[in-house]
């Protein structure tokens, strides 16, 4: 490993994975597993401190471990200012969520959540610390997979949401793969330093920018991909808090920030991000205001806030990028406790619907206070961090265009409105008589308070964020020499006046919304659209297949023979004639054995006879391979024959002993097709045999197998040595097939009355 000092980041990731593996063991021994796991996160944070200190001074530490040196592929990590900020969010909120999970979920579910969430934290840490696009992609996809497992839960009720999330983020991952490949090939290297330093190259970079943006948009639930986030709310609250407030959805934002120095000069970057971001910000706000489920409100809010951040990043100039970073931190600081609070209300009262909630101020006083503070931060009120970040965003956008400012103001009005509705609808007003609850245990309340406290503290002394933001800016906007001066009071600026107007309008809107409070007839629901698209594709497949499926097996065989035969004849016609190899004496004997067997196979009356004869023909072919010098092929053929015959016999056992009598006309048709197929294959084999000498690759393998691999069996060395990567892919497919069959085996069966 080329390292400057100890490779703390990869070790940190490994430590998190080890913690995840140790959770079941730990859970059997102590009741405070949540605290222990949280301690693991804190330990990782401590491990990262030395590298983070270097990063905060504007430096960077990198570690690289070559995977395939000849191709330039390696596992590379870095710690710079941007990584430090995001790592703090991932690990800090993670620790709080671990404690929260312990108090929220019962033992078995908690163990599952701890393990998967910690694996997720490790993947997310990998994403934010990746030093090249390959490493980034690997961990990016890992987060998608783990998120699927977390949303899906135990498989009851979470399946639709999980599938949607996986399909959408997976498709985004494909787009990202294409985008970064374009960038890497064009820049001549996979690491970020090379890509950032390269010159943008017209159409290629524009395409890459769009693809990368797509990847980020799907992950961060931007329009029109935002619907998966709402569907993901079926997951337990700790999952929603960690994934959908603090980490996973932030991955898209991180990607945009990381590649901003490379892509912000591409013409399409700014309009794409700003448009998508602003549309999302407004749409998300509207959804949040219309939603009735507490978590749905927060989901819409997350989408909206992320839209605002994306739009701000799109602007590209240093003030905007810095504002985006500050708002990311602020968002994590207020969204996480709000999700936790929603979870507390759900946990204590078993109600999450705003139409059935109200007046919980007296029943859950401590929760109410904490929620109030976090809500004030979300609404952008002083003296909280949300206010500071909102001001920064307003300042950054004000100088660009009045339309943009209007959009941000509108999004902020909606934010105030749905925040007020969220809080007032839950805690203020009259309490429905059926609603009971009391303040939760410290395990639930303390993490919420800590997260909120951070937002409050940083609101009072936002100057503490100056150094991290500057450090992040050296990575995101190198050479800009940005100096952050975050403060609570900048004087009576136009931005302040806009904020005051926004708050006033928002409160009025909230009051109006709460007074209306009837279910909205028009629901602009992307999820229904996606499900409809999904069903439509399946139905289209069914329609296309219907003519085929309507055929009998015979009909299908005839079509296959005809079409495939025609295709192969056409392909082979272009192949030059070759000399046929000489026939060995043994092959004439084989022919003499196979022909009677074939006759018996066609004329036999019992199924068992046919099975036996088919096996015999297979064995004869195996002997042919031995005669021609391919013993591995022969062995495989024999083994596969044996197993195939077993399966055929197992099926035949259920049927009658004898074949049914077949009318003469069908015999004629079937016979003709069989003869035609046989003739076709013979023709093809004769044409292809000897038409091409040994290829150069085959020549190489035959000559160098022993020198390169130490083995004499070329077939085997090709499988496990020269082409081992192909084999790895094939065995993965086989494993998936085995799992599929195993799932099929355990299906519920129709019991026949005996």
């Amino acid at each position, binding site marked *: 490993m080329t390292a400057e000092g100890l490779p703390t980041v990869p070790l940190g990731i490994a430590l998190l994975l080890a913690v995840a593996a140790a959770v079941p063991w730990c859970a059997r021994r102590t009741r405070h597993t949540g605290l222990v796991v949280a301690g693991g996160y804190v330990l990782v944070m401590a491990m990262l401190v030395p590298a983070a200190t270097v990063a905060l001074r504007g430096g960077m530490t990198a570690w690289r471990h070559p995977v395939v040196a000849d191709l330039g592929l390696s596992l590379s990590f870095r710690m710079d200012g941007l990584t430090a900020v995001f790592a703090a969010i991932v690990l800090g909120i993670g620790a709080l969520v671990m404690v929260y999970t312990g108090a929220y979920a019962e033992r078995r579910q908690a163990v599952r959540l701890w393990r998967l969430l910690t694996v997720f934290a490790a993947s997310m840490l990998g994403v934010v610390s990746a030093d090249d696009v390959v490493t980034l992609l690997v961990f990016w996809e890992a987060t998608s997979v783990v998120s699927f497992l977390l949303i899906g839960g135990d498989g009851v009720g979470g399946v639709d949401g999980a599938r949607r999330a996986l399909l959408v983020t997976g498709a985004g991952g494909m787009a990202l793969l294409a985008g970064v490949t374009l960038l890497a090939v064009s820049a001549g290297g996979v690491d970020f330093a090379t890509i950032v330093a390269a010159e943008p190259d017209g159409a290629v970079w524009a395409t890459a920018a769009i693809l990368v943006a797509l990847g980020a948009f799907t992950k961060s639930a931007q329009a029109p991909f935002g619907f998966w986030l709402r569907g993901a709310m079926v997951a337990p609250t700790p999952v929603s808090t960690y994934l959908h407030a603090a980490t996973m959805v932030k991955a898209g934002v991180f990607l945009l920030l990381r590649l901003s120095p490379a892509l912000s000069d591409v013409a399409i970057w700014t309009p794409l991000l700003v448009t998508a971001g602003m549309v999302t910000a407004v749409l998300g706000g509207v959804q949040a205001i219309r939603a009735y489920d507490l978590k749905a409100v927060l989901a819409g809010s997350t989408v909206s806030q992320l839209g605002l951040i994306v739009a701000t990043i799109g602007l590209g100039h240093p003030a905007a990028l810095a504002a985006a970073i500050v708002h990311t931190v602020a968002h994590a600081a207020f969204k996480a406790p709000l999700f936790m609070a929603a979870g507390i209300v759900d946990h204590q009262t078993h109600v999450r619907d705003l139409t059935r909630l109200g007046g919980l101020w007296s029943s859950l006083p401590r929760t109410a206070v904490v929620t109030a503070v976090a809500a004030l931060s979300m609404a952008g009120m002083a003296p909280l961090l949300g206010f500071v970040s909102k001001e920064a965003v307003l300042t950054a956008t004000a100088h660009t265009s009045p339309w943009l400012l209007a959009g941000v103001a509108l999004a902020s009005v909606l934010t105030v409105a749905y925040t007020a509705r969220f809080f007032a609808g839950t805690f203020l007003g009259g309490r429905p008589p059926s609603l009971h609850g009391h303040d939760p245990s410290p395990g639930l309340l303390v993490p919420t308070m800590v997260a909120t406290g951070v937002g409050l503290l940083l609101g009072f002394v936002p100057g503490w964020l100056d150094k991290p933001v500057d450090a992040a800016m050296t990575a995101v906007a190198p050479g800009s020499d940005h100096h952050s001066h975050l403060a609570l009071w900048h004087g009576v600026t136009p931005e302040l006046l806009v904020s005051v107007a926004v708050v006033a309008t928002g409160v009025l809107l909230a009051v109006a919304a709460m007074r209306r409070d009837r279910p909205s007839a028009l629901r602009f629901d992307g999820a229904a659209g996606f499900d409809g698209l999904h069903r439509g594709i399946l139905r289209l497949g069914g329609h296309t297949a219907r003519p085929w499926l309507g055929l009998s097996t015979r009909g299908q065989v005839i079509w296959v023979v005809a079409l495939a035969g025609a295709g192969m004849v056409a392909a082979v016609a272009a192949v030059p004639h070759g000399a046929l190899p000489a026939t060995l004496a043994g092959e004439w004997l084989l022919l003499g054995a196979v022909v009677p067997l074939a006759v018996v196979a066609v004329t036999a009356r019992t199924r068992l006879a046919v099975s036996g004869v088919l096996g015999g023909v297979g064995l004869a072919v195996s002997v042919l391979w031995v005669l021609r010098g391919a013993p591995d092929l022969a062995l495989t053929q024999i083994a596969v024959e*044996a197993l195939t015959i077993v399966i055929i016999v197992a099926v035949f056992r259920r049927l009658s002993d004898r074949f049914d009598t077949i009318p003469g006309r069908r015999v004629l048709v079937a016979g003709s097709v069989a003869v035609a197929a046989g003739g076709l294959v013979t023709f093809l084999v004769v044409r292809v045999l000897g038409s091409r000498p040994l290829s150069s690759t085959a020549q190489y393998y035959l000559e160098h197998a022993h020198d390169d691999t130490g083995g004499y*069996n070329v077939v085997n060395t090709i499988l496990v040595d020269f082409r081992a990567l192909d084999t790895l892919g094939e065995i993965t497919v086989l494993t998936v097939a085995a799992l599929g069959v195993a799932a099929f*085996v355990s299906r519920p069966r129709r019991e026949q009355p005996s």
Partner: protein
Amino acid sequence: MTPTIISHVAVRLLTPAIWTIAALLLWQGHNAPGGGFIGALVAGSALALADLVGCRPDPTRAHGATLAAAGLAVGLVTATAPLAFGHPFLDAVPVDIGGLHLTTALPFDIGVALIVLGLVRTLLSDLAQARPGDGIGDVP
């Protein structure tokens, strides 16, 4: 098929022989005909024999899915382990144990064998558990 004494004894005698041959094929694969796929298929025929004859499966035996997953794990470990020693991904590192000249291609082959075994077992267990009315054997 109801198990009889003869079939029981036959299976008892044949199964260890088949397994031995399968292991031999796996071991010698690098230098002589054989290898992971072939060894696993031959061992699979031993499994098929036991199921065909009607021997009741041992309830503690490993599920096909477990075998396959274990095989994939072995394959992945063999692929990534060379990284820890400075070799590239999926490198066949020669290892000399007591005069035997082996490479890490052997554990990879073992992983392949486990996966094929797992697949064969899942297929056979489905057939073995098949009952009338579940659709197997219906002629379209």
